[in-house]
């Protein structure tokens, strides 16, 4: 595996299988009375969040703590960043403090890649701009494989604001890599023009796609996109692309409803739909911890990141 996880393009299909298999063992750890193993004792993981994201940060924090790593949460408000420190200086500071891994969330696409130029440790992308959110895609694959027994050949629709969604990009790449058939569904204004090059289909009609699906993946729709005129009104959006009870009835038996959270109940997904047994949204959250433990373990469990060089 690569030293960093910046994009789904950094991992091969075999790597993905290994990440998911290792996560299986970590999920078992999460069921124990003592949900903690000493695997990464003495390692330091820094959560560097330039954008607010409580759930992703907590998930990474819990993952690192359950591996016995030391965790430092560095958020931009109330830190030197609000005093005008640049990403580079922050990175060099963390480097000087001996961070073995840096988990970064940034509003600029490519910030994690830039960070790798300044630090020796592993960099994990926890979401950068409209680029990628690879750990989310991996936990989604894990949840699909866990529930449906396979990924290859699955038919999945990713519905909503694909244009601004790093989750949709990472998940599309990951599904294509694993041999699943993904279809992006949304209004033409919210589907990126280069989408066919991702190895996915495109549709603007949710109803026609639903009966053929194994997975219906709803994206969060940000209401401010209406002001930016990507769609005329939230109500119209919900009417055309919201997952209602009627639409769920059109899904085949056993098809899953997924959402990366946080949800806008009543916009992209009806409130009672989110609570159906086929909605695995909470499982995605639980599996996210296991996937992030797996990634931290696989990236930091070897000797490459150890200062002082490798020994046998």
């Amino acid at each position, binding site marked *: 595996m690569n030293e960093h996880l910046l994009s789904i393009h950094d991992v091969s299909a075999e790597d993905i299988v290994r990440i998911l*298999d*290792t996560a*299986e*063992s970590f999920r*078992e*750890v999460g069921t*124990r*009375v*003592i949900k*903690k*193993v*000493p*695997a*990464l004792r003495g*390692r330091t993981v820094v959560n560097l969040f330039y954008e607010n994201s409580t759930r992703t940060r907590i998930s990474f924090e819990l993952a690192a703590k359950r*591996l016995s790593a030391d965790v430092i949460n560095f958020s931009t408000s109330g830190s030197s960043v609000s005093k005008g420190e640049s990403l580079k200086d922050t990175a060099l500071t963390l480097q000087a403090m001996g961070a073995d891994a840096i988990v970064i969330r940034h509003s600029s696409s490519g910030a994690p890649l830039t960070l790798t130029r300044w630090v020796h440790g592993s960099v994990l992308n926890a979401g950068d701009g409209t680029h990628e959110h690879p750990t989310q895609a991996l936990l989604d694959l894990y949840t699909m494989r866990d529930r449906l027994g396979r990924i290859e050949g699955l038919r999945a629709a990713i519905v909503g604001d694909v244009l601004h969604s790093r989750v949709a990009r990472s998940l599309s790449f990951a599904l294509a890599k694993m041999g699943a058939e993904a279809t992006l569904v949304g209004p033409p204004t919210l589907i990126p023009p280069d989408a066919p090059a991702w190895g996915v289909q495109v549709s603007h009609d949710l109803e026609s796609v639903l009966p053929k699906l194994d997975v219906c993946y709803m994206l969060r729709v940000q209401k401010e996109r209406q002001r930016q005129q990507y769609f005329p009104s939230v109500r119209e959006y919900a009417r055309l692309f919201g997952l209602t009870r009627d639409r769920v009835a059109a899904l085949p038996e056993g098809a899953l409803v997924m959402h990366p959270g946080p949800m806008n109940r009543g916009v992209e997904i009806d409130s009672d739909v989110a609570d159906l047994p086929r909605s695995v949204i909470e499982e995605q959250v639980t599996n996210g911890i296991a996937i992030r433990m797996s990634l931290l*373990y*696989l*990236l*930091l*469990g*070897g*000797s*490459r990141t*150890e200062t002082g060089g*490798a*020994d*046998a």
Partner: protein
Amino acid sequence: MSGTRLMDEAEIRRAVTRVAHEILERNKGAEGVVLIGIAARGDDLARRLAAEIERIEGSQVRVGALDITFYRDDIGMRADAPEVHETRIDFDVNDRTVVLVDDVLFTGRTIRAAMDALVDFGRPTAIQLAVLVDRGHRELPIRADYVGKNVPTRRDEDVRVALREVDGEDAVLVQAPASSRMGEGA
């Protein structure tokens, strides 16, 4: 698999039977005894011991599998993160006598890790250790309670247990170290 054969199928079968008897003798029956095998191969041996105990005593003992990867003391010293196996202990270990089962006892570091892992699941009354082969060269103060066969080895030799369940045959093999094998031109 090549190398000198230390035990064949019949010898392994007899050793498992004897160890099953010894476990019952020492613990005065199978009451409160559970077997936990260390993955990989220790869990297969644990299942065989459980089958023997059932045959001898007529009582069933619970069997679990324990992966010790996350408790290893050499994480970060190898080039890649060690591969992970499945842990499955779907019973309570509190107030039970846990017999840890492994294929080869060597440095003792695996057993140290297994004991650390086990106490995260609860507080057993006692932990005992059963191994198919004890090859010596301990680096920690650990000894086995039940031994299938004591085998004097050189430290740099490679001792491997093959089991039907994973390898298609039952055998214990010893191989000379890779460096001297190359010297022989083999």
